[in-house]
């Protein structure tokens, strides 16, 4: 979001500005309260559902909040940094499990985001010019994204079944690639199962965004390049990909945050307890809070997760916006 040209249209223009500016300014002062009024509903709701609970969550992370205090959480004793110490003590079981889950999530997120972006971008570029069946294909490609998460993931659960699933039928019975049918939803394979589902579900979003981004690249650029003798592949490398940079900056960040925080996919795929190899951080924290009934530690873990995401986002934006104004959003 960098185009801010329309925001202050008259300020710089010498002619019309002189006559219109004074009247607009008085109008603005008179209606100084209006923008706040317009923002009020959004503000109240964000406060109620996101910010106040977040503050409560941070307070809770400093309390020893077990099931005994849940009815009246204010009376739970303070533990200072106790919950944080437990969470980051990587020699003890709790911290060790959290660190493991963190690494699994990082690996999963990087792979999933990379693949989603790659497939989405390739598909969008290949489908840039018209060919027969393009519209149909585009609609088909958006189906995984349009499907409700639970419906899509439940279908994959069925396909990954040990005895009656499609995946084992194809890999074992038809292609004879494995000696015996594999388990996909428990053990080490679960990581790949989760990755497959996540990419299947996520790449159309990248496709959609890149497709929209491609439409903003002026056609003259291609024409000029073609006149200079640049071939198709060169045009893609020299014009298409560089022009997509601003789109990719936002797209990769959004994909990263969504994938890192994803709860729905692993939750529907594995149920309440995920296998160790696919123990994503949000399910891990959910388990730490709701299964072991230790909400203080769960909150501390959530706060650590939030801090990590804040740092990553900050560093990412600082690194990718050199020379660009990411301002206004």
């Amino acid at each position, binding site marked *: *979001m960098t185009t801010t040209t*329309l*925001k202050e*249209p008259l300020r710089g223009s010498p002619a019309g500005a002189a006559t219109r500016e004074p009247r607009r300014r008085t109008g*603005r002062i008179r209606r*100084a309260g209006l*923008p706040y009024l317009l923002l009020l509903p*959004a503000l109240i*709701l*964000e406060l109620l559902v*996101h*910010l*106040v*609970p*977040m503050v*409560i*969550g941070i307070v809770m992370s400093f309390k020893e909040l077990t099931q005994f205090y849940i009815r009246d959480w204010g009376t739970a004793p303070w533990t200072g940094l106790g919950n944080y110490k437990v969470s980051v003590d990587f020699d003890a079981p709790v911290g060790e499990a959290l660190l493991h889950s963190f690494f699994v999530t990082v690996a999963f997120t990087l792979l999933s985001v990379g693949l989603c972006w790659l*497939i989405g971008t*390739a*598909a969008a570029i*290949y489908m*840039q010019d018209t060919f027969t069946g393009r519209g149909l294909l585009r609609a*088909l490609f*958006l189906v*995984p994204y349009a*499907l*409700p*998460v*639970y*419906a899509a993931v*439940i*279908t*994959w659960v*069925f*396909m990954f*079944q040990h005895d*009656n699933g*499609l995946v*084992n039928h194809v890999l074992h019975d038809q292609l004879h690639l494995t000696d015996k049918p594999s388990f996909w939803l428990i053990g080490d394979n679960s990581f790949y199962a989760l990755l497959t589902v996540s990419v*299947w579900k996520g790449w159309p979003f990248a496709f959609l*965004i890149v497709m*929209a981004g491609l*439409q903003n690249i002026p056609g003259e650029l*291609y*024409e000029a390049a073609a006149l200079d003798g640049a*071939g198709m592949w060169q045009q893609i490398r020299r014009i298409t990909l560089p022009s997509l940079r601003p789109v990719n900056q*936002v797209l990769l960040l959004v994909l990263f*945050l969504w994938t890192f*925080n994803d*709860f*729905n996919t692993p*939750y529907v795929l594995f149920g309440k307890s995920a296998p160790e190899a696919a123990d994503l951080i949000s399910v891990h924290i*959910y388990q730490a*809070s*709701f299964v072991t009934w230790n909400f203080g530690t769960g909150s501390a873990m*959530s706060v650590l997760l*939030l801090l990590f995401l*804040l740092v990553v*986002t900050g560093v990412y934006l600082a690194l990718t916006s050199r020379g660009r104004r990411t301002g206004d*959003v």
Partner: protein
Amino acid sequence: MSKSPMAPPSSFLWSRRVFLTLLTGFVLVPVYVMVSSSLKPLADVTGKFRWLPSGLTIRPYIDIWSTVPLARYFANSLIVAGAATVCSVVIAVFAAYAVSRYSFRGKRVFTVTVLSTQMFPGILFLLPLFLLYVNIGNATGIALFGSRGGLILTYLTFSLPFSIWMLIGYFDSVPRDLDEAALVDGCGPLGALFRVVVPAAIPGIVAVAVYAFMTAWGEVLFASVMTNDTTRTLAVGLQGYSTLNDVYWNQIMAASLVVSVPVVAGFLLLQRYLVAGLTAGAVK
């Protein structure tokens, strides 16, 4: 898309054919499994997987309604997602208009704060929100926890940041002269918004509505904690089929298909608007 006047090289064409064929297969297989399994007799889905059904039956589509109270879940999901969408779009339109057309103190703080809520892990505010709703209920008698109202409130804020962000971009692309002319003609600012800006931004608004509906229709985490038997939505309700002793995979697939049809159909019908909305708004 006016591209180079010369024809694409053959390397481009064959790699495109291979890539798009493989991708179509990847996308279609689960869709095929869902559709075909939903028409299979139970024996076909309990034994070894078979690509072709031994016989077609619509039995699963009849049974799904009695195995679990699917109709009630359906109604709950419709109410929750519908209301969340309407509220979210209206609120986002107001907020985006303010940000797009006015300069005021705290504007940057507002946009940054709203957008940054996107990065909160849902798990961080699940329990506090749950406690907050219970406390508000105890203090004021407004039942938020376990009610559809609480879920509507929660879901509409989920789609709000993205909606506001996308609409700001969209409103920015609507020429300011248009609403200034309306203001000069004596419309109030709200008149200018509804008579000029909103009609010009319909594709963006439709896109935002589609997004908001899908978000609410598909959410699992909060639905599993914040609903009870009467307010349960499809996201949680569908799990009812697999907790039984026998897993009726054909019914699960039939139910998945039934609950997907409204969103997928709506999405595909309106995807043009979504791409147009993204092009003009978010992806600038």
